[in-house]
């Protein structure tokens, strides 16, 4: 077993275990914390795959932004120490069935399929400059249009969030 | 522009005029002016038509106007009239004219009421003059839909229920009609060439037999619903009972005729072979309707219900006559439509006026009205006598033509149904006289009724114009009958040509 494999196994173990804990924990703040671990471990996977920039984004936006936002909202809407109501069997059983069934089908499909993996050419680190170029490029493999769309989306989301969060005058 | 287009333009202009009115009085007078103009237009049309025919114009339809308005589906605004349509237009304009006066005392929302009423009438006129199946269907819907609002808003009793029931059942019929019409359109060129909605063109073709057998029941039932064919008639009693006076008049007097006319003009005319093959089923239903409606009316206590069932009986006779497939009976069918249209409009007008005074429609609560409102009572007796087929009124002419025509079919089946249908005239006499006896004659049962007043001037205009209508047709039917016969030529020839294909 190579170090790589070991690292992957560790990361994926963290991800899976804390994912499960995220969706089952009955203390909501803890759940958010577990989610944080999951996201950090995912960032580790990105490092492993040599997407350093992506990993950085994952850490800054997800971990630094989204999770903090979630935790804030938790603090706004719940009392610390409150235990969440346990879901009833009527919810759990179908959910487990569906999830297991879906996982099985997907896994069978995925494992049966022979992906034409390219030969991996060592450690090619993606250059930030290259990323930036293609992000604003209008050529082939350029992403300026999605980039603009996302910008507008974010702007809209910002406006929307402000409007929604604003207190009503009445 | 053909004179026929005026029949659509005048109501629309009237509606525009109504929208500009300030007071209720203005609304009424604009409506009267518009519909009076329409009435004059109808009379002019009849005279022009007769003049043309006398001058030897033997075209199948006159006053044709044809504009393409949707090229992709080859839909035209194609209007034209033959003797039958002219007669129906005359009926409609008379009933609408009387209906305006009969709704003089409508409660509120005058502007809206008259707008819908006139919109409805323009739909009816459009239906009768259309020669394009699609445009015809368009106008048909235009005539049916305002009914919902008219009953739902201005009605009485369980008006929402009735309006809903009526509209849903008629819409059900419309759905069948639409299927049937599309079916006809798709098969309208069996020998190649562009598909068409044009009735005249389609009537020159023979549609494939298996399609005909499929389409004929669709169309006949679809139009039959509006023509109050047994067992699809139950919207009629409830709907009429809840509808305001003018709406009942228009509905029973004109709108139900759309059903009969559609059966005649579309179902039988375009699909004659299928009509010959499966017509007997509907003939049985129509015969049941005739006798069943009459017996149904015998037991009712509400004036409007009595009249609604009587309409079922009389309209059953229309379908009955159409299904006899010969010129005389069909002539009778058309005359019965006109006669019943005027007569039943008269009935509903009178019932509305009586109800407006006594505030009840139950015959047992009234009595001896002859003494307090002689004008209305005499008019009611006249309407009753016309309804039971007294010579001198239109009903007699129509019924006798139907029976003589029906008797020309010599086989035992047709004989039996004819005799059964003819026996309805006795039952009709019974229920009419029962009502007249209880309602108008005898002693006044309620002292409050001593104070009631007789008809006002607008009531009188409405009633007298309708009575004149039935009397003129009843005394001198020849011109009308000949005019209709002229229009029936093509259909009778088609039916004769189709007859040898009978099994």
């Amino acid at each position, binding site marked *: 077993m190579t170090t790589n494999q070991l690292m992957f196994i560790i990361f994926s173990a963290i991800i899976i275990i804390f994912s499960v804990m995220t969706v089952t924990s009955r203390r909501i703040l803890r759940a958010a914390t577990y989610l944080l671990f999951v996201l950090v471990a995912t960032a580790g996977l990105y490092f492993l795959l040599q997407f350093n920039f992506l990993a950085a984004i994952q850490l800054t936006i997800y971990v630094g932004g989204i999770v903090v936002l979630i935790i804030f909202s938790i603090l706004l809407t719940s009392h610390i120490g409150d235990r969440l109501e346990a879901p009833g069997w009527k*919810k759990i059983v*179908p*959910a487990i069935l*569906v999830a297991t*069934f*879906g996982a099985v*089908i997907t896994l069978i*499909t995925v494992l049966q399929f022979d992906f034409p993996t390219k030969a991996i050419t060592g450690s090619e680190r993606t250059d930030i400059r290259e990323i930036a170029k293609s992000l604003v490029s209008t050529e082939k493999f350029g992403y300026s249009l999605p980039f603009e769309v996302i910008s507008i989306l974010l702007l809209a989301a910002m406006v929307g969030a402000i409007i929604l969060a604003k207190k009503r005058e009445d | 522009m053909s004179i026929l287009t005026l029949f659509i333009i005048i109501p629309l202009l009237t509606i525009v005029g109504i929208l500009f009115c300030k007071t209720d009085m203005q609304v009424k007078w604009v409506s009267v002016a518009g519909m009076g103009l329409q009435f004059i237009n109808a009379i002019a049309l009849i005279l022009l038509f007769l003049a043309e025919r006398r001058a030897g114009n033997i075209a199948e339809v006159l006053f044709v106007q044809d504009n393409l308005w949707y090229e992709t589906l080859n839909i035209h605004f194609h209007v034209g009239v033959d003797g039958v349509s002219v007669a129906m237009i005359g009926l409609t304009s008379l009933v609408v004219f009387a209906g305006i006066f009969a709704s003089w005392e409508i409660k509120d929302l005058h502007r809206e009421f008259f707008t819908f009423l006139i919109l409805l009438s323009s739909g009816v006129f459009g239906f009768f003059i259309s020669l394009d199946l699609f445009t015809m269907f368009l106008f048909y819907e235009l005539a049916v839909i305002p009914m919902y609002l008219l009953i739902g808003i201005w009605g009485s009793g369980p008006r929402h229920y009735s309006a809903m*029931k009526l509209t*849903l059942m008629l819409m059900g019929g419309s759905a069948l009609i639409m299927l049937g019409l599309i079916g006809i359109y798709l098969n309208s060129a069996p020998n190649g060439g562009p598909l068409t909605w044009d009735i005249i063109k389609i009537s020159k073709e023979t549609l494939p037999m298996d399609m005909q057998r499929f389409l004929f029941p669709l169309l006949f039932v679809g139009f039959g619903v509006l023509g109050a064919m*047994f*067992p699809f*008639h*139950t*919207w009629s009693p409830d709907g009429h009972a809840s509808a305001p006076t003018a709406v009942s008049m228009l509905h029973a007097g004109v709108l139900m005729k759309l059903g009969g006319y559609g059966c005649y003009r579309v179902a039988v005319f375009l699909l004659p072979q299928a009509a010959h093959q499966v017509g007997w089923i509907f003939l049985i239903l129509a015969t049941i309707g005739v006798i*069943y409606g009459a*017996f*149904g009316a*015998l*037991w009712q206590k509400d004036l409007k219900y009595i009249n609604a*069932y009587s309409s079922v009986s009389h309209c059953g006779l229309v379908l009955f006559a159409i299904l006899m497939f*010969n*010129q*005389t009976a069909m002539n009778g069918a058309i005359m019965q439509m006109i006669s019943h249209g005027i007569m039943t409009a008269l009935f509903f007008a009178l019932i509305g006026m009586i109800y407006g005074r006594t505030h009840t429609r139950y015959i047992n609560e009234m009595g*001896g009205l002859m*003494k307090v409102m002689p004008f209305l009572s005499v008019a009611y007796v006249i309407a009753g*006598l016309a309804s*039971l*087929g*007294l*010579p*001198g009124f239109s009903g*007699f*002419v129509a019924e*006798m*033509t139907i*029976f*003589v*025509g029906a*008797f*020309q079919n*010599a086989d035992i089946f047709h004989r039996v149904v*004819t*005799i059964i249908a*003819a*026996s309805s*005239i*006795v039952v009709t*006499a*019974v229920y009419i*006289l029962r009502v007249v*006896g209880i309602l108008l*004659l*005898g*002693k006044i049962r309620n002292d409050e009724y001593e104070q009631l007043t007789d008809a006002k001037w607008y009531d009188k205009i409405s009633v007298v114009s309708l009575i004149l209508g039935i009397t003129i047709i009843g005394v001198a*039917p*020849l011109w009308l*009958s*000949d005019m209709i*016969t002229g229009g029936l030529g093509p259909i009778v020839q088609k039916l004769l040509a189709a007859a040898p294909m009978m099994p």
Partner: protein
Amino acid sequence: MIDFSYTAWILLLPIFLFIVIGLLGNRFKPIVSGIVGTSGLFIIWLLSLVTAYKYFFVLEKAADGSFLKFMAFNMRWLNLTDKLHIDMGVLLDPISVMMLIVITTVSLMVHLYSIGYMHGEKGFSRFFALLSLFSFSMLGLVVATNIFQMYVFWELVGVSSYLLIGFYYTKDSAVAASKKAFIVTRFADLGFLIGILMLSYVTGTFDFITLTGPDSPALTSGQGVWFLGLSTMTWSMIFVFMGGAGKSAMFPLHIWLPDAMEGPTPVSALIHAATMVVAGVYLVARLFPIYVFSAPVALDIVMWVGAFSSIFAAIIACTQYDIKRVLAYSTISQIGLMMFGLGVSGYGGHEGLGYMASMFHLFTHAFFKALLFLGAGAIIHAVHSNYMNDMGGLHKNLPITHATFLIACLAIAGVPPLAGFFSKDEILAAGSERSLLLYWVEMIVSGLTAFYMFRLYFSIFWGKKQEYHQTPHEAPKTMTIPLMILALGALLAGLIPFSNFVTSDRLPFVSHLDMGIAIPAVLVGLTGIVVAAFFYLKETDIPDKVFKALGSFSQAAFHKFYIDELYLFITKKIIFNYISRPVAWFDRHIVDGAMNGLAYITNETSDRIKKLQSGQLQQYALVFISGALLLVLLFVYLWTS
């Protein structure tokens, strides 16, 4: 050839009068309506007399000496099929001309009489308007050129009769009676209509001249056996006779006539004694050649029905107390006699004696029966009661009425030389040649007739003295003058040599008085009178004893043999309760229920389905994901082609 087209005015004038009086009558004093109506009818009467004179005496005859049968006026009214069309016109032949005389004369008398009788009644001008309408309809009926025109006017007389019977519309019994009269005759008319339809279908024409002419299509067509062993033609004639029987109140359709007496008495005299009720007889006479040659079975039915009705009604008449009802039953009986006369008749010459006699009797009967009714009206007018128990000893108070009533009674009883004697004698003579049984039946009828008429006469004018609220006094001149004129007719009408004018083949022949029949008939009549005198001249208890002695039979007769009850049972119980009510129920609950059920099912289904939209986000998600997975399973693994 004389121009008879002016006869159209005989039709047009009354309808014109009807419209004028009906629309404008209320604007003027009531008496104006009466005068306008009467004078109008006077003109019509004159026209009819002129027509009759010109027809019988001036107009040239056909080559064989028979009276002509022709259309004085005819116009197309409605086209039906290629062959069939309804015309409106005036047909002149001996019977229609004779009927013109009868109708206009009686109608004129009744008009005149009504001015006095109806004086001060509410609706005076309405009454005269309706009388004009009736005159129009009846005249149109008799001059009809085709059977459909006859049907048209047949219906119109029915409705005029309805309106006149129900003249006192606030009286419930009058309303009920008018309704009954209309519906019963309407039912009969349905038969008439079916008969017409069959006849016209077979022969292809409505026209009387064609139908009854020597080359009539009725002779050849429709002779095949059709139903129950009878030919189409026979059936159609039976149906037509059904119409006639209804209008003429033959058994079993007679029930409306006694009730119709609820109408004003002049109406009873005009419509229900002299004119409308004989329309059935006239109808059979009009189609007589068809009956004789093409449908003898139907003619037999006419004979049997006529004979039975005459004896049946005569028996009932003996037991009734309402004088107008007695007269009504007497009318039924006499019309039965006329029908019998037609039924036994043959065609042509002496064979057609019954036909001639029947028409003769119709003619004379019109006079004396109208006279009886008008007399009864005068009596009722005087004592304000219809019941003979309330009357008695009136011969001093009402001298003119008494005299004229007596003449009428003698005439109907068949005492020579009054009108009834001659005509009845001819019918009996014709009957004796055909069927001895029925001859004797009719003999008994004439005895009974004499009996009940004089029962009436004696109980009204003689018998016990009554105490009246106010002394009865003679009616005014407008009422007594018509009585006297009609009495004159009843006296003299029999002396007309009728066989010179009206015969089955329109050829005059000479009829002799058959002493072998006349003498027994007169004797029977006199016996009846004597018995009646014995019973009723002085107040005795003999009638009661006889009545009791006959037991249940007389009870049944008194209750009109329970025919009314039977009808009531059929109409009220069966038609109303067992047909109409279930139909109404069926409609509301089954047919409409099906429609409502459809709506209910739709509604219910949508209600159920809408519960699926629970608003539970996770439930939606569950369904969505399961669905997506199932689709994957389906398309990736299970449905791999």
